[in-house]
């Protein structure tokens, strides 16, 4: 028994050691040559907050199904204004529990803003102009289990709400099993003269499909596991599945239409808490949700029946088209072009909260290389598109594993006595591989992707207002002309929100005199104005990206006339003129 405990302790230490590189004290500046588990992310956030107490606050915004705390770090320089008066930049990650490097991108962004504030001019300006909301780990249970339990690189995605995936009356009863106790769920293969596979002559770790008529050597049995519920199927009812990126309110469809939707919108309690928190911050104008993998910048819509206004597409493009250049190997496209989804987070942000939202699918394919210019493998013209089916690429990735990560990404096949299958072999890509860059590559990944968030923050609207003309046009009547200019790439509010009345429009308000007439100037040279019929002293408007709008007011009276511009998502302004 004692020996057994030692064994467990030993493997636990071994796993931790792997997960986080050499375990070290977490201090500012944070290190990004390692992955932080859930507790360490929390610790890292506290350390950042403690180092910059004036610039940050750290809030627990809700709890998960298993009671873990969901943290949000807010970075705001109070000296340059209150939070809600500045355009908000929202960044989150790790909504799928297994997509852990997304959390590191968030931590890096926070770390970069805070440690370079006052040193780097561009970053200082962005910190002063915006408020930054950062939730590194949305699916806190998923991340915790991904580190603590044996998993594949694809599992522990779900929100921890049990679901009877195989419809047998039992919930989550047949997950994969870590038969060899190495902390990863890898693959099982069995020698089988009637199998469909044979060993690759170049690398015996790879199985290749037999050609028709060729004698087989192996069968693939699937992920490491046993038939826990004795129904003749392996690993068919693992945790969940409630996909945290299908459970949001906008365009939600039930699970028989959208797998993983959950029983009703926001059945995930952590997601509900996050939505309520976002609702209280109507100043957020840009949002990023980081995922893995494949190297993509995705924008709404996620369905093929909705068209979004051209002005908004242009605004998305300002960021998306430049983001591609910052992150080599990434593509930029509407989310629906990947596949249509219902109830996803990004559509919810855009259509419900009026936030320009991006999904960043971190880590492009083809990053794990082992070749020179001459040996560069040709892209197979007719691949199935799925990684792993492409033998050429698998060979190269294995050499990358052998020579650059010293074998840490792949577990060699080892014999195992399976209770049902008898003599089998277990091996393959480990949990911390494939969708995740090896820690040595992490620094570049987090930096480039955080730079895209910075680009977006830089492009949040910056409105300036000037009185361009005051002219006496009658007895006791003055004409005042005002121009509002946006020098950045994002408009003061999304066109979609304006059309569908998602939130309050911007307001231009005159006080101090009687406004006889007022309206938008359509052509200043030709003196064309659309007057507002009622209440001309309050105009509702929005200011386009890289654009300006002009308004004209006919004001009766004397004295000081105040002009206020109020926006939910852009900066607020006030000016005045003496008549």
């Amino acid at each position: 028994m004692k020996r057994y405990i030692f064994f467990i302790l030993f493997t636990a230490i071994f796993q931790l050691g792997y997960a986080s590189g050499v375990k070290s004290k977490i201090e500012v500046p944070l290190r990004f040559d390692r992955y932080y588990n859930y507790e360490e992310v929390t610790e890292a956030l506290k350390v950042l907050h403690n180092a910059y107490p004036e610039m940050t606050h750290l809030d627990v915004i809700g709890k998960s199904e298993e009671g873990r705390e969901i943290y949000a770090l807010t970075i705001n320089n109070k000296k340059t204004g209150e939070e809600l008066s500045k355009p908000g930049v929202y960044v989150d990650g790790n909504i799928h529990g297994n997509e852990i490097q997304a959390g590191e991108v968030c931590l890096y962004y926070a770390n970069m803003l805070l440690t370079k504030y006052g040193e780097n001019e561009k970053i200082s300006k962005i910190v002063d102009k915006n408020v930054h909301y950062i939730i590194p780990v949305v699916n806190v249970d998923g991340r915790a289990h991904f580190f603590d339990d044996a998993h594949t690189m694809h599992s522990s995605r779900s929100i921890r709400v049990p679901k009877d995936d195989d419809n047998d009356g039992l919930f989550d009863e047949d997950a994969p099993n870590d038969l060899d106790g190495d902390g990863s769920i890898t693959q099982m293969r069995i020698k089988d003269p009637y199998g469909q596979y044979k060993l690759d002559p170049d690398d015996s770790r790879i199985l290749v499909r037999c050609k028709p008529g060729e004698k087989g050597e192996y069968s693939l049995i699937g992920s490491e596991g046993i038939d826990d519920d004795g129904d003749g199927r392996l690993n068919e009812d693992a945790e969940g599945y409630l996909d945290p990126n299908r459970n949001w309110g906008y365009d939600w469809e039930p699970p028989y239409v959208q797998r993983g939707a959950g029983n009703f919108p926001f059945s995930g309690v952590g997601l509900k808490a996050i939505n309520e928190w976002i609702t209280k911050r109507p100043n957020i104008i840009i949002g990023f949700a980081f995922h893995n993998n494949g190297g993509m910048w995705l924008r709404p819509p996620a369905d093929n029946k909705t068209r979004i206004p051209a002005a908004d597409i242009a605004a998305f493009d300002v960021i998306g088209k430049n983001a591609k250049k910052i992150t080599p190997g990434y593509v930029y496209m509407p989310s629906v072009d990947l596949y249509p989804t219902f109830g996803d987070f990004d559509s919810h942000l855009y259509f419900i909260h009026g936030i320009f939202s991006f999904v960043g699918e971190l880590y492009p394919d083809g990053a794990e290389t082992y070749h020179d210019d001459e040996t560069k493998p040709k892209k197979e013209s007719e691949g199935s598109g799925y990684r792993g089916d492409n033998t050429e690429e698998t060979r190269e990735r294995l050499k990358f594993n052998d020579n650059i990560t010293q074998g840490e990404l792949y577990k060699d096949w080892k014999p195992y006595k399976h209770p049902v299958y008898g003599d089998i072999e277990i091996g393959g890509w480990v949990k911390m591989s494939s969708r995740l860059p090896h820690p040595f590559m992490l620094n570049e990944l987090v930096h480039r992707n955080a730079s895209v968030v910075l680009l977006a923050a830089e492009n949040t609207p910056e409105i300036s207002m000037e009185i361009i003309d005051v002219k006496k046009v009658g007895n006791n009547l003055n004409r005042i002309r005002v121009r509002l200019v946006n020098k950045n790439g994002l408009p003061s509010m999304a066109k979609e929100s304006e059309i569908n009345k998602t939130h309050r429009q911007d307001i231009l308000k005159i006080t101090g005199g009687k406004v006889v007439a007022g309206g938008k100037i359509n052509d200043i040279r030709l003196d064309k104005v659309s007057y507002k019929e009622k209440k001309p002293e309050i105009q509702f408007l929005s200011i386009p990206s890289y654009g300006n709008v002009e308004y004209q007011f006919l004001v009766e009276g004397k004295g000081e006339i105040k002009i206020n511009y109020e926006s939910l998502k852009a900066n607020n302004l006030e000016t005045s003129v003496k008549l």
Partner: protein
Amino acid sequence: MKKLRYFCIACCLWILGMPLFAQPLISFDKYHTTTEVQQMLKKLQQSEPVKTQLHTIATSPGGTPVSVLEIGKNLEDVPAIFVGANFEGNVPISTEGALAFAKMLLDSAKYTEKIKWYVMPLPNPDAAKGYFEGIKFGRSVNDFEVNNDMDDLPNEDGPDDLNGDGIITQMRYKDLEGSFVISGKDSRIMTKADKEKGERGEYKIMEEGIDNDGDGKYNEDGIGGINIGISFPHLFPFEKKEAGKWAGQSPESYEIMRFIFDRPNIAMVYTLGSSGFCIVPPKGGRKGGANLSNIKIPGRYARMLNADPQKSYSMDEVIALVKENFGGEMEITPSMIAGMLGLGAAVNPLDEDLKFYTKFSEDYKEYLKGKNFNTERLDPTPAKDGSFELWAYYHLGVPSFSMNLFTVPKVKEEKKAVEGELSLDDVEKMSAKEFTALGEEKINAFLKANNAPDRFSAKGISDMMSSGKFTPKQMVEMMKKMPKPKKEGELSEKDKALLAWSDSEWDGKGFVAWETVKHPEYGEIEVGGFVPYIESTPKPEAIDSLLQKQLPWLLQLSEKIPSVLFADEKITDLGGGVYKLEIYIENKGYLSYPIAMGERNSQPAPVVITLDGEVDFLEGISRTPLGSIGGNQVKKLTWLIKTDKKPTITAKIESAVFGTDVKQIKIGG
């Protein structure tokens, strides 16, 4: 003094000991306020504390609790029925209905022995308050803050009671751009001017009010809020501000969904309100949904299944193809196929389910006749997109029955009593022989007088009746269902019925007579129109009888709930310790489990047969999902087992709905 105190204590004890005696009776002779409804629920709970429990599941944005009375707390392992009422908030009789229904359940033990009940009379209390407020406008939204016009203020421009009568009706005023005229048939009603007849509009019509916020729009941002009656996720109406921004945005509907999903034993749902599936089956014909009888198989799946991507298949054909190509023991359900092929959501009731809806609606009409209940009333309102009753059917996949407890009687067409002319009712009672004996001339006259379609001819019908294919009763039923052609200039059936109802029942007060009022902007205008609630809310003295006549039908319907039990088993000794075990499972209820929609969405909890004992399974497994089972049907499951002993094995039916049924089976006995 001391004595007196003892006496008091004794009295208290005596009262406590007889709680039923101490409580006033619960009666239904008025509409109860939200506070009174809460008190009544408490009273009902306290009257049977062992059987009942009161759950407070949410608090409305206006601060009123939403409560569910559980009846059958003491029961385990039984199916449950959820009863919700007045989601739209402006049908107060449905709240009374739910309370009366709870009382019926508690008054007789008959329906609470094998079924657990959850009764929720007031899911939208903020809106329900509108009936009792000083100014009534038929409020259906709660106090959730919504800035409908997205200007600088919320709730700043609601309707205004210009004529000070405490109700919001309509205003009409003469306007050059108006498109309405006063109806020639009844000067109370406004109709659209008919350009083709050379009419020119004279009036504009609007809801009674002023432009409080001076933005040029009238009543565009009134109080609240979200209408709980359209805030559920099936066909959620995103475009309607009063639905909320997403399904379940307001706590009432969110917590109702959570409460129901936390209780997988809920196998049937009743809704009291404005729709009436009990009398008119849920409507179909919506476009855009998955058509399961006409499925195209996309290319990549077509290759896998050796199917033709150009051809259309029925669901059964696709299931057959999948079985053929992938075999296995697993039951292939329509749900799996629909999910795999990405067929999308169902938006029309499934054919199999329409069968029971139609049958029960016919039975219900008979039942009402038996109770001397006038069924010649305006049809119930079709269930709205985002409604609770649609959600229960489409998302929970359980039978969902809705009942509207009151609509206004139709106006009987005044029949000139022409000598010898036959009415529909006369003909309905005739035999085929009697009808054909009338002769061609009389039959044609009858058909013409009753708006029969052109394809009905005396000769054709007589031939069909002579050959026994058609009866006068069937013919009359068909003719009654035909839409009545709207005659030129006629009032709509609804307007006619409402006016008649206002005159006969409300002394004309169901319609506020047009009255000239000074409007701040339009000057002289007229205010008038139908009083809110008139369509759905009878006088208080009518409540009790309406409830007593209609609600017991829902008790009867509860007996149609499926019930899954062991029927029989058969063991065949094949020699060498190998046995064939056949177990017969029967559904003693009328309804299948699950219904077709439940099969489609896989939401109802499965029924699983487990076998436990010292046997090896040669074929079959120890936990076998039953799949679907039809009403009054038996399903056979087969295993091949091997054993060297002669063991007794334990067979169990496991189900979150029906509980557990256990049977010991002796093998080789």
